[in-house]
C-alpha cells in the first residue's frame, strides 16, 4: 500500500508533549508502585527509609508533572478526550468480547481530535476522577499527618483510614494498569500499533466506519 492514499497515510495522533507526559508518568507511577509495595511490607529491597524517601520524591515529581499536564489539557482543550461517552461503548465491549477473536475490525479508530475509544474514555476517566484523586488525597493526608493529627479531623479520622484508601486505590490502579497495558500494547493492527503510536505519535489506523469524527 502506498502512503499516497490519504486514508492510510500515518497520522499524527499524539503531540510530543503527550508522548513525554505519558512515558514520564509511566516511569513515575511504576516507581511509586514499587516503592509503595515495599513500604507496605510486601518485600524488602532497599529498606523502608529509602523506599519512603524515593516514594515521596516521585510523588512530588508526579504532582509537578500533573500540574503541567492539567495546564496543557486546559489550554489546548485536550481535556475533552477524557470525557466519558455512552455512545459506542457497547460496541467496544462487544468487540473485545467477540469481534476481536473472529477478526472483525475495531469499531473505532483514533484521530488527533478523538484519541480514545469510548471504553478507554471511561477507563481513563475512572482513573483520573476516582483512582488518582483517592491516591493523591489519601497520600497527602498521610504525608501531612502532623498537620491534622491534633485537629477535629484527627479525632474523626484514624491514620489507618487514609492508609486504607491509599492501599485500596493503589491495588485498583494495578488492575487498571494490567488491562491498560494488555489492550494498549497488543490489540492494534499490527498488534503493537497502539504502542508504536504512543512512542512515535503517529498512527496508521484508518477508519472503516462512521466512528471517526
Amino acid at each position, binding site marked *: 500500500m502506498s502512503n499516497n492514499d490519504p486514508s492510510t497515510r500515518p497520522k499524527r495522533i499524539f503531540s510530543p508533549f503527550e508522548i513525554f507526559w505519558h512515558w514520564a508518568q509511566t516511569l513515575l507511577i511504576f516507581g511509586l508502585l514499587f516503592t509503595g509495595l515495599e*513500604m*507496605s*511490607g510486601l518485600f524488602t*529491597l532497599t529498606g523502608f527509609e*529509602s523506599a519512603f*524517601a524515593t516514594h515521596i520524591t*516521585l510523588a512530588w515529581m508526579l504532582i509537578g508533572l500533573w500540574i503541567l499536564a492539567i495546564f496543557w489539557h486546559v489550554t489546548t482543550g485536550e481535556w475533552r478526550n477524557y470525557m466519558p461517552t455512552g455512545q459506542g461503548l457497547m460496541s467496544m465491549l462487544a468487540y473485545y468480547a467477540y469481534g476481536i477473536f473472529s477478526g472483525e475490525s475495531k469499531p473505532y479508530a483514533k484521530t488527533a481530535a478523538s484519541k480514545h475509544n469510548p471504553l478507554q474514555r471511561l477507563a481513563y476517566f475512572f482513573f483520573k476522577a476516582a483512582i488518582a484523586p483517592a491516591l493523591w488525597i489519601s497520600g497527602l493526608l498521610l504525608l501531612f499527618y502532623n498537620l491534622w493529627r491534633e485537629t477535629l479531623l484527627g479525632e474523626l479520622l*484514624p491514620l489507618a483510614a487514609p492508609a486504607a484508601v491509599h492501599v485500596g486505590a493503589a491495588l*485498583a490502579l494495578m488492575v487498571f494498569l494490567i*488491562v491498560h497495558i494488555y489492550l494498549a500494547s497488543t490489540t492494534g493492527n499490527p498488534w503493537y500499533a497502539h504502542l508504536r503510536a504512543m512512542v512515535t505519535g503517529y498512527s496508521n489506523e484508518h477508519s472503516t466506519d462512521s466512528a471517526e469524527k
Partner: protein
Amino acid sequence: MIKTYRTITAGLFLVVNCLAAANADHTPLDTEAMLDPAPAEMGSTADHSKFEQLEGPFEDATEVTAACLECHTEAAKQVHSSIHWHYEFQQPETEQDLGKKNVINNLCFGIAGNYQRCSSCHVGYGWEDHEFDFTAEEQVDCLVCHDTTGSYVKFPTSAGHPPYEDREFHGETIAAPDLAEVAQNVGPSSRETCGTCHFEGGGGDAVKHGDLDSSLIDPPYELDVHMSPEGADFTCSTCHTFSGHIQLGSRYKITMPEDERPVAADPHQKPACEACHGSEPHDSGIHDKLNQHSEFIACETCHVPEVARGGKPTRTLWDWSESGRMDDDGDPVVETEDGVPVYDGRKGRFEWREDYAPEYHWFDGNMHYTLLDDEIDPTETVTINRPMGDHDTPGAKIWPFTSMKGRQPYDKEHKTLLTAHLFGDEPSAYWQSYDWSEALAAGMEEAQKIGQTEKDFSGEYGFVDSIMHWPVAHMIAPAEDSLSCQSCHEPDGRMAGLEGLYVPGQDSHPRIERIGWWAIGLTLLAVLGHGSARYLLYRHKRSKQENSQEEAA
C-alpha cells in the same frame, strides 16, 4: 522486575540523597557555648587542702560534715530539702506519696526494716531505723557526691557510713578511706560519684537499670555520645542540673517539654533532650517525617536502639519464691551462668539480659504506683509502677522501657503487697532465719512505723507475679546507630502490639488487600485468557490459510 526496580531506584538515588540524606545528620550543637564550663577550667576560688578545718584526722565522717558546714553554712539545709535526703516525692498528678520511703519494688521490696543496707545509698549517715533525725545537719554526707579521689566509699551495711578500718564484705576487702585526704580534695560531682549509687541500683552494677551502669564512668562514644570523653564528656549533672543541691529530673514525674522553643540550653526543660536540641532537631529533608515523629515519639525511642549496651547484663527477673535453698553446710546455694548469678539461696532466681531491644509504651511522664495500702488482684501480674498516659493523652509519647519481672510476697488475706525485713542481725531478718512469716511481720511492722501503711501482716502470705517499668533515657547512641525506619515499619516491627497506633509497613489492611490482590489475580487471568485465545485463533487461521494456499498450489 527486581532488576528494573533496582535500576529505577539507583537512578533516583542521586535525587533522593540530595534531598533527604541530610535527615541522617545531626543538627550541630554549639555545646561549648551552652554548657557550664568544665570543672577543671572553672578554677575554683578555694583550695580545700589549705583549710585548717580539713586537716583532720577525722574519727567519724560526721566530723567532716561539721567542718564543711563551717563555711558552707546553708549546704545541709539545702540537702535536707532534696529527695536525695528525705526520700519523699509528692506526685502532683496522681497525688500519691512516692519516694523511696513510700514505694515498694520487686527487688528488695523497700527500705522499711532494711535501713542499714538501703541507706548505703542515702546522702546521710546513720539512718539505722525509723527514728532517724532528718533535721540533723552533720548527718549529711557531703563526700559521697563531692569526692574526687575515688577512694571514698560507703560500707554496704553501715547505714551510710564509710568503713573506718578495712573491712570484709562478701569476701571483698573494702578499704577505709583517708577522710582528711578526701575532704581536702572535694570538687564537683562526677560520673563516678553519682554512679556510686545510681549505677548500683538493686544491689549491684547494672542490676536495676539497663541504661545506667558503670560502663558510663568512661563510656566509649558508641555507648553514650553525651557522656563519652570522646563525645560531649557530660557528667550526670550537665543534664540533671543542680541548683541549691536540688537536681532536675525524676523517675516519678518525667520532664515532658511541650512548648516549641528552639534550640537553647533551656534549664526549664532539663533534663529532657529538647532543652538543648529543641523540638525539631532533624533536618527536614524532603518530607520532615523525623521531626513529625518527635511530636509523639520520645527521642530515646529511636536514639537508644538497645539497652544494656555497655557490656553489663541487667536483671530482668527476680523470683523470690524460689529463695531459701541451702547447701549441705547450711549456706545459701549460689549458681552462676556466664559470670552472673542465676540463683542465690538468699534471694531466689534471676534472669539477665544484655544488648536487647527495650519495650515501648505510651507515657505522659507520670508514674502510678501500687503502694502497700493498694489492693491487688493476685491472679494477675501486679503492675507495681504503671507509666500513665495513652495515645489520646495530650503530651503522651511513645517511650522505651525496660521491665523487671518479679515474684514477690503478698498478703493473701488483705490482698496487698508486703515488704520484708531482709537485712539485719535479728532472727526475724529473712537472711538470718529464712522464715518468711517472721520476716514479713517484722517488715510490715517497720513499714507502719514510717507511715508507709497502716495494715498489719495477716500471717497468710503467698507469692504474686509483678512487673516494674523503668523508662530508658540514657546510653544515647551515635545518630548513625539509632533505630532505622525499618525497625518499626516492617511486619512485627518494634511497635507491634502498641495500642492507638497505625504504623505503615507494620499494620496492613487484610480485607482490602485480599480483595485487591484477588482482583489483580483475576484480571491477570482474564487478560492471559483473552490473549491466549486470540493467539490460538490467530495460529488456527494462519494454518488454515497456509493449507488452502498449499492446496491451491
